[in-house]
């Protein structure tokens, strides 16, 4: 019956309770949504770290970590390969040769790491093949000799991107809602080729109004991009014998991930296309990448197994190689609760205030209850339950709405395009798909109950201090 009274008491002063409930609802929505957003980012970053960049476990020559000389290949590779093939925990694995090289075209050059891969095998370990940009070729499907897949960033540095205002671009702008005046302004530039982004931007700024650039600038830049596929890139590097070697490749695909650093450092070629020129022998590889189940326990256990079996090799987990992503994955759940904690701490003052008012306006009734035989434990329970109900109603509504918002934005995504460059410089995607573990809702519910209990202490103490005789006489 105390539950019944407490629940009904919540609605005694409907408008006052609703103000607090709405505040709690909004606070919970914000907390849940921010937590979902952060989790979305962390999950995406973790997924990229494992499935695009590093894999779960990487085996290398320990000396290669200090000195990236080609001679420091993975020790005992044949035994490692055999062991991995026989291990049930291993879902997939692959190996790379790696050469730090200088890439040059007729217009530009840049230093990067050339990774020799087996494309089919690579697809089982890395999802990089899914990051080929629109109109950016393909992932080693072109039939020509010595194909290479480079990042959009590298293509830009090597001047392999042109900007052209084509009829197709004008048509696309029209469907995006561009006005005739904008199309007319662009018309004189039609079919002109701009060899750098800077020059193209400068030209656009000279012919378009600031408002037009603000509205359609990003779309024009994106649509005008023209990748120079099949372009030749010459790589210069020091081979196994220490002699300078050269090899040329033709661009077959251009990729773009959310990690600018990864993009500008890596290019991928078929392993056989550099083996001979670099002087690699059979089983000369610089890294072995392994995919397991996404379980820290399994990853650590398998790392330890590999370490004990192959003591001469360096065996590292993704968390050791990408500590930023590892730390985020480990500590993020604590941050979510900290966010919720701060929000509820602030809301607790509102809850205490409301409950104090509820107690003060019911002094006479509380006096009567104590006079007729309601003991202190029951009085405290009644006020505590009332506080819990008040807080739970708001937080439940907040969790439902917050969960629904996460569900919606988890499907369509949230695009932080305006800060894309900054985000991607740190490996964080600008397009984020929020998500949240169901366990977080249980955690928040427990937190709400604790906050409600703590918030009820001051109002309940006020009630318990009442003298029934004096309280009954209160007008």
């Amino acid at each position, binding site marked *: *019956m*105390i539950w*019944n*009274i407490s629940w*009904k*008491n919540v*609605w*005694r002063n409907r408008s006052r309770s609703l103000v607090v409930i709405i505040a709690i609802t909004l606070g919970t929505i914000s907390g849940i949504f921010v937590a979902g957003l952060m989790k979305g980012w962390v999950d995406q970053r973790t997924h990229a770290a494992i499935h695009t960049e590093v894999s779960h476990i990487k085996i290398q020559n320990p000396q290669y970590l200090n000195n990236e000389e080609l001679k420091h290949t993975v020790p005992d590779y044949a035994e490692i390969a055999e062991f991995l093939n026989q291990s049930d925990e291993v879902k997939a694995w692959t190996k790379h040769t790696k050469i730090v090289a200088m890439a040059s075209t007729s217009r530009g050059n840049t230093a990067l790491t050339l990774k020799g891969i087996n494309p089919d095998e690579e697809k089982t370990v890395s999802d990089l093949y899914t990051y080929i940009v629109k109109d950016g070729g393909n992932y080693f499907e072109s039939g020509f000799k010595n194909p290479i897949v480079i990042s959009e960033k590298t293509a830009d540095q090597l001047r392999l991107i042109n900007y052209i205002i084509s009829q197709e671009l004008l048509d696309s702008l029209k469907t995006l809602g561009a006005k005739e005046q904008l199309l007319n302004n662009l018309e004189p530039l039609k079919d002109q080729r701009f060899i750098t982004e800077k020059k193209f931007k400068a030209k656009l700024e000279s012919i378009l109004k600031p408002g037009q650039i603000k509205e359609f600038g990003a779309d024009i830049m994106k649509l005008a991009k023209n990748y120079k596929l099949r372009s030749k890139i010459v790589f210069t590097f020091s081979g196994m014998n220490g002699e300078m070697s050269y090899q040329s490749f033709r661009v077959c695909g251009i990729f773009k991930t959310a990690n600018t650093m990864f993009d500008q450092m890596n290019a991928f070629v078929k392993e056989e296309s550099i083996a001979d020129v670099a002087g690699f022998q059979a089983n000369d590889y610089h890294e072995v990448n392994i995919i397991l189940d996404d379980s820290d326990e399994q990853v650590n256990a398998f790392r330890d197994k590999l370490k004990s079996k192959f003591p001469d090799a360096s065996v590292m987990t993704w968390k050791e190689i990408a500590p930023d992503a590892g730390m985020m994955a480990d500590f993020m759940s604590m941050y979510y609760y900290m966010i919720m904690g701060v929000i509820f701490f602030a809301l607790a003052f509102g809850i205490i205030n409301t409950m104090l008012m509820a107690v003060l306006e019911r002094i*006479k*009734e509380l006096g*009567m*209850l*104590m*006079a*007729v*035989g*309601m*003991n*202190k434990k*029951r009085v405290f329970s009644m006020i505590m339950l009332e506080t819990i109900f008040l807080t739970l109603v708001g937080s439940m509504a907040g969790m439902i709405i917050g969960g629904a918002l996460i569900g919606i934005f988890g499907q369509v995504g949230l695009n932080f395009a305006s800060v894309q460059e900054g985000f991607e410089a740190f490996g964080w995607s600008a397009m984020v798909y929020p998500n949240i573990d169901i366990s977080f809702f249980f955690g928040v519910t427990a937190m709400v109950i604790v906050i409600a209990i703590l918030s009820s202490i001051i109002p309940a103490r006020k009630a318990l201090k009442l003298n*029934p*005789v004096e309280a*009954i006489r209160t007008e």
Partner: protein
Amino acid sequence: MKVIDIKNLTKIYNESEVKVKAVDNVSLSFEEGEFAAIVGPSGSGKTTLLNMIGGLDNATEGEIIVNGTNMGTLKSSELIDFRLRNIGFVFQSYNLIPVLTAKENVEFIMDLQGRDKIERDNRAIELLKAVGLGERVNARPAKLSGGQQQRVAVARALASKPKFVLADEPTANLDSKSTETLLDIMEELNKKEKITFIFSTHDQRVVNKAHRVITVEDGHVKSDERRN
């Protein structure tokens, strides 16, 4: 059978430096089934006396023995439980819980006593019928008149099957008709259930109905008149 035995009861209030003797060496006893009124002018000490009998206020000296239990020896928590099981209260301004229906208000005391739902339901309905509110069991206090609310309060006071009921100015806020109805109901219940009723009042209508009238003045019992 003696329900309440009051021996040399004194209550002194220490307000600043001035000591006020609200009740001065009062000795009284009440038998089972009495219908008694404590009367006296304002400030005579009748409400203080009633509060002490109800265990809501402590005596400075003397003792109150209810059914063999000396209330002065009970700890605060024991006293609350003692009140719950032995004493029914009716207050001047009804003091019903506004969010509960008439039936729930009556049931509530029995819930505190730990009685089961069926027993609570049956007794609440039975008592509300007895006070003439059988048709209004699901009405909230705001939908009831003052007289009806006080009748619910009487039903609530009886719900716990108390040894006696203390009613502090129960008719002060009621019109004549409601007062008459309420007093008739209480007298009827007194006769039927052999429950002792003790009123603190200066309402002549209550005094006229009482079977025993105790007049208090300046903290002393001035007269104790029994009527047939």
